[in-house]
């Protein structure tokens, strides 16, 4: 130890500190540990890495499923303006003009995808028809009210200045020349 004793008090401190931790571990400690280790061998060091790998694999699979099930950004705007009956074949509709051919090709492209995607896009096509009604009704009401008001104002202002101005100039000029 680096600490040197300077007297009886320091010696007493050292002895007291040593005595406070001077204890032999009880025999039950080793028995309890061996029991807990052998009773639950599945938690041992050989199994723990495999548990970690399995947990990581589960996380990856769940993340992949969630990523696959989200709606694709390409199909969403295409179905917005389309009626619900044609929402299942948004890609093939623009390329092939005849309607009968489109219906034949559409199921082939939809099959590999998750059925939940088509249900979601069909449900989204309903709200836009209700949203378009409200802004059309507001615009014409505001423009009619603005046009009516400025018409009567200019007629009332033109009457007063015409009668006053010629009377004052004529009297003052005659008086000065005389």
């Amino acid at each position: 130890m680096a600490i040197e004793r300077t007297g009886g008090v320091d010696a007493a401190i050292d002895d007291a500190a040593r005595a406070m931790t001077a204890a032999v571990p009880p025999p039950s400690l080793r028995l309890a540990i061996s029991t807990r280790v052998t009773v639950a061998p599945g938690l041992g060091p050989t199994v723990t890495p495999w548990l970690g790998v399995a947990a990581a694999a589960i996380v990856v699979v769940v993340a992949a499923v969630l990523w696959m099930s989200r709606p694709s950004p390409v199909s969403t705007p295409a179905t917005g303006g389309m009626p619900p009956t044609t929402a299942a074949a948004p890609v093939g509709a623009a390329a092939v003009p005849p309607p009968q051919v489109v219906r034949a090709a559409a199921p082939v492209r939809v099959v590999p995808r998750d059925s939940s995607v088509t249900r979601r896009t069909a449900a989204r096509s309903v709200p836009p028809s209700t949203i378009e009604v409200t802004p059309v009704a507001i615009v014409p009401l505001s423009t009619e009210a603005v046009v009516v008001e400025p018409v009567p104002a200019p007629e009332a202002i033109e009457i007063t200045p015409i009668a006053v101005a010629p009377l004052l100039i004529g009297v003052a000029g005659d008086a000065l020349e005389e």
Partner: protein
Amino acid sequence: MTDDELVRLARAGDVGAFDQLVVRHQAAVFRATLAALRDREEAEEAAQDALVRAWQRLGSFRGEATFRTWLLSIAWNRAMSRRRSLMAWFSRRAPLAAADGVTEDRHGLLETLRHRDLARHATVAIEALSPKLRDALLLAQSGEYGYNEVAGMLKVPVGTVKWRVSEARRQVRQRLAALGFMDGD
């Protein structure tokens, strides 16, 4: 057989090899938990938890430090966790008392002051130290660990450990002097 060899066998699932490691290091683990908890039963439970946890986490031991250092670090962490929960329990039991008063009353400082026994008073004075100073003093003076090991357990530099030990001794000496115990007694 060295610790490294036993660790290698234990990693492969050899319970007997781990038992050998327990036999070698259980005293050091138990002393560390006893220094932290100051109660034999609590120390035994903490030591048991630490050794079982070491078995469970043996796969994460990379050999950067010695097995003993790694094990003592686990033991000290388990003891600290248990001590925090015990302190929380004590604080709920005596919420109106000041912290210093609780510590001194709990360890019976006022009662033991009646005894004119230097060793007993030294023990009481050590108990009354702050946890940081007391931990450093008990671990360093136990004779079981070097300063490097103490620093590893407490997660502080070696110089900090030495300062804490010196400060702990100064405070204990000061308390004993106030009771009439001077150098040379």
